[in-house]
């Protein structure tokens, strides 16, 4: 593997222990991925922020990094934490868990991570441009950056994304190479998408059948301002049931344009409504979760405006809404209930990576939440078509 002069020196330890460790891990991982060299990146996004996810081992590792003098060398954001650090859940978790969750957040901020981040939509804080090289963990953000923005990132592991943040580089392999970004199959969705939940169900289905990089033809009959939320939930769902890092959506993805005439020679899969129906469940809880991936307050307002009547008919009692940390101030001024439905905001947090055993069940319109909550949070989840 080729290393530049600076990279050689960093690997030899000339710039300190933390950089040496980062380069050591990166070089070995990159060799395993058959990368010929490293590529400089402008933004790293790390995952593994929830204490329920990384445990005491993760804290030990982060503390060792701090002792070695670790600092990020480029703009770095982090995924949401578990809900355990929020004051409103003080009574739901033990003091030990709360202290440890806060410790992880504090260490990450001390290493240089943007304190306003702790979100799974880092592209709203700093939007990458076409062709920009990134090292992002968090599968839903990776597929969004590649597919919607035309930026270049692999699905990094939590630790390698952190090493990349310190070294400012990652492996020049996979999605960083143009030849790996061409469509390999065509997927046609035969019916128009009308809601977040429908987009989620289609995403979950495509994730199960996709083999390479799909060229996707789809129509959305959605309020223009909600289209981005729908796309986010679609892509996050698709990335939950597959390891797909990129899709080319006709009329949406900047790189899809090149293949408008060429995709017809690819193998074609058609999806009709019956295929995705199996992903819808009957209502399982009067608690509805919104914000997977995170939504901002303006988007929440729109969703509620369109769906409040349905929520009332279905007797939804409580809304949990995950929003980015940077929305914290806005929340203070925003409503706490709407027409009898209580709204609980979760700034910088994510229920999917939290312990939700007390909640038992949660309804959602997001495919990723429906896929992961039973596996990672210990509660059951149902996908309902109400927004």
């Amino acid at each position, binding site marked *: 593997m080729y290393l530049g002069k600076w990279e050689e020196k960093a690997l030899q330890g000339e710039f300190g222990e933390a950089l040496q460790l980062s380069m050591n891990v990166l070089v070995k991982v990159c060799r395993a991925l058959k990368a010929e060299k490293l590529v400089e990146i402008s933004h790293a996004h790390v995952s593994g922020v929830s204490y329920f996810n990384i445990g005491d081992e993760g804290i030990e590792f982060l503390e060792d990094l701090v002792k070695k003098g670790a600092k990020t060398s480029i703009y770095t954001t982090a995924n949401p934490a578990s809900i355990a650090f929020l004051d409103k859940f003080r009574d739901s978790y033990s003091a030990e868990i709360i202290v440890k969750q806060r410790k992880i957040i504090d260490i990450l901020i001390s290493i240089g991570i943007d304190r306003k981040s702790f979100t799974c939509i880092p592209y709203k804080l700093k939007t990458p441009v076409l062709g920009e090289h990134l090292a992002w963990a968090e599968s839903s953000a990776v597929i969004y950056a590649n597919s919607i923005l035309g930026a270049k990132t692999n699905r990094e*592991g939590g630790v390698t994304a952190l090493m990349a943040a310190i070294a400012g580089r990652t492996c020049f392999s996979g999605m960083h190479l143009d030849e790996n970004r061409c469509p390999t199959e065509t997927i046609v969705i035969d019916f128009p998408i009308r809601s977040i939940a429908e987009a989620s169900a289609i995403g979950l289905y495509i994730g199960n059948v996709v083999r390479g990089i799909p060229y996707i033809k789809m129509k959305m009959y959605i309020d223009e301002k909600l289209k981005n939320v729908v796309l986010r939930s679609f892509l996050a769902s698709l990335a939950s049931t597959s390891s797909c890092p990129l899709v080319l959506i006709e009329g949406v993805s900047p790189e899809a344009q090149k293949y408008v005439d060429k995709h017809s020679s690819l193998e074609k899969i058609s999806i009709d409504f019956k295929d995705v129906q199996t992903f819808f469940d009957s209502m399982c809880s009067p608690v509805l979760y919104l914000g997977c991936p995170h939504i901002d307050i303006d988007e929440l307002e729109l969703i509620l405006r369109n769906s409040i009547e349905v929520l009332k008919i279905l007797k939804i009692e409580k809304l949990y809404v995950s929003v980015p940390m940077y929305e914290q101030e806005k929340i203070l001024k925003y409503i706490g209930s709407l027409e009898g439905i209580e709204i609980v905001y979760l700034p910088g947090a994510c229920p999917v990576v939290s312990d939700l055993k007390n909640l038992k069940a949660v309804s959602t319109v997001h495919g990723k939440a429906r896929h992961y909550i039973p596996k990672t949070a210990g509660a059951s989840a149902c996908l309902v078509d109400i927004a």
Partner: protein
Amino acid sequence: MKLENDIMNTIEGEVVKVSVISFLGDIDREKGTIISKDSGCFGCSIKNKILVVERFRGSTVGTYVLYSLCRKGLAPKAIISIEPDPVVVAGAALCGIPLIYGISENFLSSISTDDKIRIEMDKGANEVCIVVEKDFL
């Protein structure tokens, strides 16, 4: 065949062989024993063993778990596999566990749990040699 993380001298140890493993979920973090039944070596301790793996699976959190096993002295002496897994490569790099990958399926299938393995590094020729000793008694 590729070796990551240098071997200073020869490494010798008993084999624990698994068909599939994830460091998150398949290994008891406190004891260093295998707790997944489909691994093919349920209950085996990986501490100071040569871990021979047909296939890795699972979460990227596995890196942290391998790192923690090292700190607790519960990690394997070396890991041998067919394909490298980035999550395991990162964990092995953090604690300097020798990791050998790119060996043939045939050779890997000839190795069994409780065999003895010696890994020698010929630095001059830049070659790694794996010697498998079997007990037929």
